[in-house]
């Protein structure tokens, strides 16, 4: 190895050493240069990124949930409000054995099976890694007991939370609706609307009724607290605070006392009632019976109760006034009469001779009047007062279905009224085109006949009926009905009206309105089908009875309520407005499977109008009367049977 020999030259070795030292020095410089380059990269080029990361590390945004707005009736009576209560909450990400923890908690604090079921349900649909309540509304005693044992339960905590309460229980439950815990679907909706950030920290959202419809007003704006936290997540200090803005209060047109009077009058019966102020479109009472207790839903309803509410044959969760669709029966007749007058098909004087049935030319099928043997000579006024079917069979035949359909559209039939609640049904205002579209079938003349008395394909909601009645009462002004009157800023108390603009005017001849109104007054005076309910009334009222057929009666058979299954019996209907000369209330009421409208629905209307005009106390009417012969319209028509929604 020759080079080693050379290296033994001391001077050569020395210079080689110097060279190598220099190389090492350069190597060190290169490494330090590398470090410097790394620092420049991190501290200059990526500085913004890392600075943001450091800020995100230290700053935590803590949402402050706003107070939800109140819901008040027209006199300021509370329908929905908030209170603070203590809840026992479990953080499932911290607690490993949930069952064991709940078990030992239950030794300290009473935990009902209902609470456990609800907890399980909330756990399943939990949207984030937060604490889930196992018990709400803890007593002072329970709080103290837990506090003394808290060291045994890491991940279990007591929190003060705002709760919603509906102090009136089932009263007006279909109007107020309820709030419930935010679920995945709500999250998606909120995200699509760009509102999700305002729900940081919110546990609840309006699910039905006004709580849902006015969610944007009621929720308020979530406040934010910027907190500096250390690596353990402990708050070190508050950096800034944006206070929450409470949600707005809703003041309704609805009068809770009137609502109570109406609901009490229903007693245990199923049905619906809508009362409107015909001069504003404001809804004064809105009943769907049976109702439900909205308080059950707030913390998440437990599954058995939920199932019971949904499978109960009385269907308490269905809003009958808004989504229930019923044939209007004879309450349709005043509108038919208006069509006859306005379209020039009938003069007031024109009278038919009613033999008790109607037949189409060249056909033997009999469309029967509710009164066997007929009413004899009947003009337009009498046709409403005594609810003559034959008059309207003939009228419908003479008008033809498309003329009727076009005319009725003016009253909002077949279209939503636009009430400020979700879930409004459209109803059906049938026409040739509608039948073709719906059944791919031709319209038969026979289909038209029963339309004249509000049967057949014709269905509508109570909301539509009440609104149309208001149009007769105010002679042609069509309102978009409104539950909410004012929206009130919770802090400044500034009020903003939910302006009810008339949607349109219906310009009929004044005589047409006058004739039909007079006939409707005739209904509630002696000789009319609804007079018994309004005996001794201290005001004049316009009304119309109706009986809405649930099942078709075969040709030649007689309607016999006692032989029918209870749920196949006719619905009792009544529409009314009062006082007749200057109406301040217009309403429609339906009692399911109660029979004739004059005997079974008109008394409810009387109760509500009495209370509205005089504040008269109410006596409940519990016994459902048998379907009376005084009511109109149990007829065979061979058409589609009207099923309850």
């Amino acid at each position, binding site marked *: 190895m020759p080079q080693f020999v050379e290296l033994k030259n001391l001077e050569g070795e020395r210079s080689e050493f110097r060279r190598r030292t220099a190389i090492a020095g350069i190597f060190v410089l290169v490494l330090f240069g590398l470090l410097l380059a790394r*620092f420049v990269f*991190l*501290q200059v080029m990526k500085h913004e990124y890392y600075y943001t990361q450091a800020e995100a590390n230290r700053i935590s945004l803590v949402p402050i949930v706003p107070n939800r707005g109140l819901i008040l009736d027209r006199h300021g009576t509370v329908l929905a409000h908030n209170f603070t209560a203590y809840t026992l909450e479990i953080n499932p990400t911290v607690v490993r054995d949930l069952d064991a923890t709940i078990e030992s908690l239950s030794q300290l604090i009473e935990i009902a099976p209902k609470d456990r079921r609800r907890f399980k349900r909330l756990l399943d649909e939990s949207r984030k890694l937060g604490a889930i309540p196992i018990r709400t509304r803890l007593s002072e005693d329970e709080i103290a007991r837990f506090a003394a044992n808290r060291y045994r339960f890491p991940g279990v905590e007591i929190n003060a939370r705002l709760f919603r309460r509906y102090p009136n229980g089932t009263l007006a439950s279909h109007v107020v609706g309820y709030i419930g815990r935010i679920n995945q679907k709500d999250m998606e909706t909120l995200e699509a609307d760009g509102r999700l950030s305002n729900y940081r920290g919110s546990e609840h959202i309006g699910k039905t009724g006004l709580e849902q419809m006015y969610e944007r007003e009621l929720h308020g704006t979530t406040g934010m607290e910027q907190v500096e936290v250390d690596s*353990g997540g402990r708050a070190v200090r508050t950096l800034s605070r944006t206070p929450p803005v409470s949600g707005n209060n809703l003041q309704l047109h609805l009068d809770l006392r009137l609502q109570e009077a109406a609901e009490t009058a229903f007693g245990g019966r199923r049905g619906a009632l809508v009362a409107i102020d015909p001069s504003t479109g404001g809804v004064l009472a809105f009943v769907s019976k049976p109702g439900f207790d909205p308080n059950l839903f707030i913390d998440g309803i437990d599954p058995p109760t939920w199932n019971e509410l949904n499978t109960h044959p009385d269907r308490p969760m269905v809003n009958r006034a808004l989504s229930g669709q019923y044939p209007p029966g004879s309450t349709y007749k005043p509108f038919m009469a208006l069509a006859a007058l306005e379209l020039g098909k009938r003069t007031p004087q024109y009278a038919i001779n009613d033999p008790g049935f109607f037949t189409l030319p060249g056909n033997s099928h009999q469309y029967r009047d509710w009164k066997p043997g007929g009413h004899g000579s009947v003009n337009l006024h009498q046709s409403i007062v005594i609810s003559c079917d034959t008059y309207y069979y003939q009228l419908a035949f003479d008008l033809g279905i498309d003329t009727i359909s076009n005319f009725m559209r003016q009253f909002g039939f077949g279209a939503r009224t636009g009430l400020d609640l979700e879930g409004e049904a459209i109803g059906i205002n049938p026409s040739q085109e509608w039948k073709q579209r719906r059944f791919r079938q031709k319209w038969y003349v026979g289909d038209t006949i029963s339309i004249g008395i509000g049967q057949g394909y014709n269905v509508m909601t109570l909301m539509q009926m009440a609104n149309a009645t208001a149009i007769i009462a105010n002679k042609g002004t069509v309102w978009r009905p409104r539950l909410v009157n004012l929206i009130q800023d919770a802090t400044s108390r500034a009020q903003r009206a939910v302006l009810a603009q008339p949607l349109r005017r219906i310009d009929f001849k004044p005589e047409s309105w006058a004739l039909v109104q007079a006939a409707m007054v005739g209904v509630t005076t002696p000789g009319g089908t609804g007079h018994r309910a309004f005996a001794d009334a201290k005001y004049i009222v316009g009304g119309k009875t109706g009986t809405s057929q649930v099942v078709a009666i075969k040709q030649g058979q007689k309607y016999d309520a006692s032989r029918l299954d209870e749920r196949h019996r006719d619905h009792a209907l009544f529409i009314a407005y009062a006082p007749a000369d200057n109406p301040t209330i217009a309403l429609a009421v339906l009692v399911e499977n109660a029979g004739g409208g004059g005997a079974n629905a008109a008394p409810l209307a009387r109760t509500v109008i009495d209370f509205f005009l005089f504040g008269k106390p109410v006596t409940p009417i519990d016994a459902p009367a048998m379907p009376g012969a005084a009511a109109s319209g149990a007829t065979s028509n061979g058409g589609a049977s009207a099923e309850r929604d």
Partner: protein
Amino acid sequence: MRNVIETLWRKGTAHIDVPLLIAVCLLLVTGMVTLYSASNQSFDRMETKLFNIGVAFAVMWVVANTPMSQVIRLAMPAYLAALALLVAVALVGDVRNGARRWLDLGVLSLQPSELMKIALPLALAWYFDRYESTLRLRNFVIAAALFVLPVLLILRQPDLGTALLIASSGCFVLFLAGLPWKIIFALGAAGVAALPLAWSVMHDYQRTRVMILLDPSQDPLGAGYHTIQSTIAVGSGGWFGKGWLQGTQTHLDFLPERTTDFIFAVYSEEFGLLGNAMLLLMFLLVIARGLVITLDAPTVFTRLVAGSVTLTFATYAFVNMGMVSGILPVVGVPLPLISYGGTALVSAFFGFGLLMSISTNRKLIKS
């Protein structure tokens, strides 16, 4: 009287290398300032560190005043003692944090690998000094064996960081002693080829550290946490830093081990790129002075010792800052003179003592 003091002063400072001392003191002051912030203004920590500095200065002074002719005689015995202790650790050592590194001697516990850090370069330098005139390839093989043995023992503890650093200090000696370039390149190539093999014998946690280096986000709350948080601290410092005592990563407890191995992140967050550049410069001052002493060293032994001490110091600084800024895996290497911790400080000053002894003895010879 004045003469007596003057004489004492002259005698006491005769073996002090002033340029090196100044550079070292700059780093110590920087370290104290940073420690004050990193420890959340703990005076306890400051006092302890001051005490350690005192001890370290004493060690340095003693070593500086020891002629290298005596040091060379102790080199091999020290090496053998350290090796024996390493063997003892392997047999009866205490296991702490999953690694067998400590030897319990009753009154004090000891990490023999720390002793080896000093003993190995000395022993190698002694060996090359001894065979100076007859250096052959065989000598390099034997020298390699001298340092491979302790490195393997330390690797088994396991302590990858220390093993690599001791190995590198041995390599520096071999390099400076004139290991032929051919062999250096051949070993380099073989080393790269052996990487997969090394991977296969590594412990899981060591592999994890390497993987985390490549992608810290793999395990942001576990093994990657250190790197992520220290990188954030460094990067968020920007040009001028957040200011002394103002580092949020530091004071809100996001930085782990911020007084010891990760103290550079604290410094970097609070003093920024400008501060980092100054710190690099301070380290370079020490290294430059060390290399100058190396170049001027009179004998093979002193040259190799001075070179190895200097380059090892540089390596420590580079590895620590590289680890904190996320370009090297997390190995337990403190930042010399800055990190809190007595052992590392004393062994660094032991090295400075050697440098000073070499430098001043040469001057004395010259004068």
